[in-house]
């Protein structure tokens, strides 16, 4: 460690002194993360001097040791060894009870505080172990890459937890009970039912360790399985890469494999009756088939055609064989436009029909067709091209109030408008 590290530690401790005091006094409670944590706090957390979980802070065992060392007289750092820790607990409890019996309240209080710190150290020590192991599992087991190393790591973790588990048996309820000798304060601290008592904490840890062991066991099984599978497919891969083919049909000849073959899916369909009733049912079925109507001939032909002609992937588009038919009004309109251009005069549709048209068709029908045709070509040109002519209706006399408009004639007039195209008022 360099001098700067110590400086940094000192500064971090200085800037968070109040928080640290709160944390030490908080006993077993977690403190929420302060609203505006300074950078030094983050540094302390990153160095593991303050633990954090879900935005809650907890002082580490190391800092408690340090704090106890500098503030409490006669404090000895509790060894992580749980056997020694138990002895320490025993001694402190005895000291506490003795001073209490002697009426030395100050001494008793000092012993009590030291005991409380020792207990917290033990609890924190166990918790740290648990968290480290859990972190190991959830962080994908360290940095070991090869399966063998990974298995070894897992085995190591399992052994460690087993040892801890074994040591926890020292802190049995009976052993702790004996230490308390019925003193209320000691009972509260050692064997109380609340979560901060030593016994409860140990029961909790024991459960945690058991679940961790199960997880580690699963993990090692899965690593082994996976490893075995990897070796298997690598062997097969190199076999195939060497140009060999897997002899799958040989599997069929091995009678022991039969159970391995997946049964073909059962098709849902009409169930034939069991053999003993088959004769009757089959004749019923034949009758039913006979009663069905004959298939249509056209359908048959169609299917034959389809079978004869070579199947084509691209559907053939048959050309439209029908000749284009012009609307009947077309020729008449062209004729009228021609006359109109020659004479320069508007042409009356009614007169045209009387002179040239088919007399069996009434003029109003003819005008209806003409205006329909005109509107159609106007729509087809989409208003983009100029129409050759305009249709101007002549209306029967009517009152302004009368809603009835009666067209008696349509005049084909030259389109002199500058606008492109115009729809006729027909």
């Amino acid at each position, binding site marked *: 460690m360099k001098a700067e590290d110590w400086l940094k530690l000192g500064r971090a401790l200085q800037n968070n002194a109040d928080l640290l005091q709160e944390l030490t006094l908080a006993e077993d409670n977690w403190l929420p993360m302060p609203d505006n944590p300074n950078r030094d706090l983050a540094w302390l957390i990153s160095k593991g001097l303050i633990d954090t979980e879900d935005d809650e802070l907890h002082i580490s065992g190391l800092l408690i040791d340090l704090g106890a060392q500098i503030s409490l007289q006669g404090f000895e750092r509790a060894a992580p060894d749980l056997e020694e820790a138990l002895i320490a607990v025993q001694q402190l409890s005895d000291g506490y009870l003795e001073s209490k019996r002697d009426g030395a309240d100050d001494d008793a209080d000092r012993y009590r505080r030291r005991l409380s710190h020792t207990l917290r150290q033990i609890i924190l020590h166990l918790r740290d172990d648990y968290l480290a192991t859990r972190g190991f599992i959830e962080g994908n087991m360290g940095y070991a890459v090869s399966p*063998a190393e990974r298995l070894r790591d897992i085995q190591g973790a399992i052994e460690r937890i087993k040892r801890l588990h074994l040591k926890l048996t020292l802190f049995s309820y009976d052993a702790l009970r004996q230490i308390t000798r019925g003193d209320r304060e000691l009972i509260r601290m050692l064997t109380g039912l609340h979560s901060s008592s030593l016994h409860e904490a140990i029961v909790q840890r024991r459960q945690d360790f058991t679940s961790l062991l199960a997880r580690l066991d699963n993990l090692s099984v899965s690593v082994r399985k996976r490893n075995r599978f990897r070796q298997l497919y690598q062997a097969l891969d190199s076999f195939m890469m060497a140009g060999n083919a897997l002899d799958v049909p040989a599997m*069929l000849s091995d009678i022991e494999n039969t159970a391995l073959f997946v049964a073909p899916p059962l098709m849902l369909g009409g169930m034939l009756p069991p053999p003993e009733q088959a004769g009757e049912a089959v004749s019923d079925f034949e009758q039913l088939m006979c009663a069905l109507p004959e298939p249509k001939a056209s359908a048959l032909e169609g299917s034959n055609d389809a079978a004869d002609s070579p199947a084509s992937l691209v559907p053939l588009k048959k050309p439209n064989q029908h000749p284009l038919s012009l609307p009947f009004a077309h020729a008449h309109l062209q004729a009228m436009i021609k006359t109109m251009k020659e004479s320069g005069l508007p042409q009356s549709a009614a007169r045209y029909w009387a002179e040239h048209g088919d007399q069996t068709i009434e003029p109003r029908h003819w005008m209806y067709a003409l205006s329909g045709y005109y509107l159609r070509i106007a729509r087809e040109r989409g208003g983009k091209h100029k129409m050759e002519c305009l249709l101007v209706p002549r209306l029967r006399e009517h009152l302004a109030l009368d809603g009835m408009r009666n067209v008696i004639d349509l005049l084909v007039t030259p389109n002199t408008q500058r606008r492109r195209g115009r729809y006729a008022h027909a």
Partner: protein
Amino acid sequence: MSVNNKHLREACHLLLRQQFICPATHPTLFSELRGDEFAQAVCAVLTPLGYQLSWVGDDDSPEVYFCGLTSLQDAGERKYTEAALVAMRDQISACIRFFQLLDQAGNQQIAVVNGGELPASRLLTEIESSPPYRDQLRDLQGLAMFSDSRKAKDNSERLNYVLRAMEQQGYLVRRSSESSVWVFTGKLAYLQRIMGWLADHHSLTVQQTASTESGSYQESML
């Protein structure tokens, strides 16, 4: 305890439709099938059809249940089985390529075992951060099983196509409908079993470097 008829019907339907029942796909049915009474009831349905309830894994801890044949006498069934095996063989090399990608890009931390999890988003991050993995992923599209991934525009989509192809073949299933974590199904154990038989048949030596303890496990697998 009586047999749950609804579960029985469901299980038989699934089995007869060639579904594999494992904890990842059908947790309830799988635990039911582990009970003797339920398994017997299922057998009572399958046996008259000439099928049996098969499983892969240890006898006391099966990994996956499926509907197996009892004999290969029937020509149709034999033909079908042969075709199915050939189809599976064609999948083996594609699967191996995919597993190798998982091994390398997943830093050997993706458990390619029945019930193992495959975190797709983490895998994608790894793949995108390294050109060799990207190439490996792209190379998968040359395999018939993953040919759909040609349509993909980027790596994320490509990986999705690959995962979906594996899902279609029954090897993977999403942990939940919206989760990006996939879980390997029991069909993987089946594939492993087939591959194990083939390795034995061709007398391939499978390296054993992991640990001395893996011996007992291997015995149980094969």
